[in-house]
């Protein structure tokens, strides 16, 4: 039994260390717009909110600015890259990036909440 536990403990310690060091370095805060507004966070964060109607595309659609809002708080977002297919006003997006000193959120990636096969809007009569 003793000889069994030693390799198991060694592997467990290694895995624990890897998890600890990796998650310490790359875990990001997941916030709503109002949470981001109420306390500033250093470094990259992910911010979830609803896309407003002021979507401005330029550069053939590779550059986009829009306002992300949740409840009462809103923030301007600036993003360069291809947009998720379902991106349009009214959907929820998760922007990953950081809030610049200009007050604009510079997104590195933009994830749209996928209208998964498990969530069609219920039919209302």
């Amino acid at each position, binding site marked *: *039994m003793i*000889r*069994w536990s030693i*390799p*198991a403990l060694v*592997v*467990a310690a*290694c*895995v624990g260390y*890897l*998890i600890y*060091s*990796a*998650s310490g*370095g*790359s*875990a*990001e*805060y*997941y*916030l709503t717009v109002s*949470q981001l507004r109420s306390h500033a966070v250093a470094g990259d964060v*992910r911010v*979830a909110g609803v896309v407003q109607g002021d979507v401005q*595309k330029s*550069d*053939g*659609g*590779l550059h986009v600015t829009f306002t992300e809002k949740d409840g009462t708080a809103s923030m301007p977002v600036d993003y*360069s*890259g*291809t*947009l998720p*297919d*379902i*991106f*349009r006003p*009214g959907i*929820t997006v*998760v922007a*990953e990036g950081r809030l610049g000193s200009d007050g604009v959120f510079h997104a590195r990636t933009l*994830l*749209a*909440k*996928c*209208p*998964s*096969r*498990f*969530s*069609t*809007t*219920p*039919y209302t*009569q």
Partner: protein
Amino acid sequence: MILGYLGAGALLAALVMGGFSAVLSFWAGFQENAVMVQVGRRAFYAAAAMTVVAGAVLMWALLSHDFSLAYVTEHTDLSTPTALVAAGFYGGQEGSLLYWAIVLGVLGSVSLVASASLGLKVAGCAAGLMAVILSFFLVVLALVASPFDLLSLTPPDGLGLNPVLRDGGMLIHPPVVLAGFASFAIPFCFASAALLAGRPDSAWIAHTRRFALIAWSLQTTGLVLGMWWAYHVLGWGGYWGWDPVENVALMPWLATTAYLHSSMVQETRGRLRTWNFGLVILAFLLVVFGTFIVRSGVVPSVHTFAISAIGPWFLAFLFLCIAFSVVLLAARSGVAGGGEHPVAPVSREGAFVLQNLLLIGVVAVVLWGTILPLVSGMFGQQRVVGASYYERAAGPLLLVILALMAAGPLLPWRRAARLPSLRALAWPGATALIAVAVLLVAGVGSIPALLALPLVAAVVATCFMQYARLSAGWKKLPSMTNASAWRMRWLVRRRRRYGAYLAHLGLAVLVVGIGASHFWQQEKDVTLAPGQQVTVAGNTLTYTGSEQRQLADHSELVASMRFGDATLEPALATYAGLGGQALTHVAINTTPWADIYVVLAGSNPDGSAAFRVFVNPLVSWIWAGGAIIIFGVVLGNLGERAPAVEAVRRRVAASVPG
């Protein structure tokens, strides 16, 4: 309307039969009452049959566009092609749960037919456990998430399927993944039944292994198909995003991979018994956990899921399963024990043990990354991890696993290896060193690439050495009169091992594909006027112009790009009927060495268009590797007769005194 009542009635009948089977099978199993065990098993068949009937009714309702059913209205419409209407069956929460119950019922019945040889107690308990799990799903289907709910007013047309899902991949990926998920329940039932009955000898291993192998093969196929679908449809240039939904499909696969290897130690050496029970049970618990995560929306995911009433039900079921498994393993590990003699560290079984521990380590890494938002949310602000966490935490573990794949098969069973047997390791070692040299000459500086690819080369060398041994043995076979038939049998007897090495080779090919596309992917965002060129990683593309096409339910902006002799046509479709939703059609030019992957972002009034161009090296190797893995597993196991239970028992009895 009538179909709704029919389906709901069938579900109710199935539930009654399932509950009856559960109670009777346990009672008869512990009484060792042969007749009643048989009756309990037949009640399970009846429950499975009624579940299939319910499924047939739902399929009929979908195909006949019976919009009085809420499910049909919400997931299809009259314009959806018939194949996709049928796919609507598992396209929604309720239907996918019904599909799951059908797979469980049918595969469970098949596994029970052959279970009589395990003894009355084990057979009874296995049928009882299976009936409990099936009944749980039927309760959820009948009470909480019924696909047969009726609308008070029948609408003229349905809401239709999201265009993202209107793809051929929708027809194969979800059913395979769901079937894989459902089938992990069967090994769990037999392992738990063997423990419950106090019969933890090796007979259950032989029986369980086949179903674990089926579940594993389905899940492997499902994972690769899912990657293929994401790559070809979603247009972000990648195939794996470490999303919770992907993670929960990966974890039971990892645990079962560990089991398929450690079960060999039990078959050959009679060791690791309790550990094997634990792995089978863990795989099923991870499936239930994953279903809870995916269907309840507790973790932020790119896939949003309707936050439905089934979350608490699955949470309760998860706790029940965990409590049952922990108590069972704790109470019976003494009975199972017996095999925990020390293992020589440098031996075949030593390699298996280390590989198992590392695979479970990878499960722990993935699990932590998946639940971190939940855990951190409890103690403050939610935090999430991205791909870099998984690469940094799981990467080193996966590298050691690759090294074990290269060294393990060459180590002898049983005793600590002595020098002569270690000499075989020189071949994979030399191959790895040559690979390092080649990569250095080619100017590769990335340390992970310099570790991973040479290790893959070593794995390939090891597999070829095994095939060389096979062919040497073949040549040494004595010649006799009916030699060819005898030689065939000789080969067939060894096919499991050589099928497994083929699977290892497939994994090596897949890892090369993942490694190359991960380390050397190149991308470029570019806006081009007609006639302009862009060069990415030495590949030159010329934009020749774009046109607008009007189709039945959507319009398409199609751009043309010339690439050598080929023309790539990335497009951007817009569905006016669905609030102007866009759908990107990626254009991919595939060669064995690289994919040119072009996404059209949009066009400007002056006729120029914006593109994102990726060059993804060796991506096609991933799909090829997946196919080789499945081919190897099928070749090694198809048509395997009820594995020689007796032979296994004898072998184990010989190796474990008492």
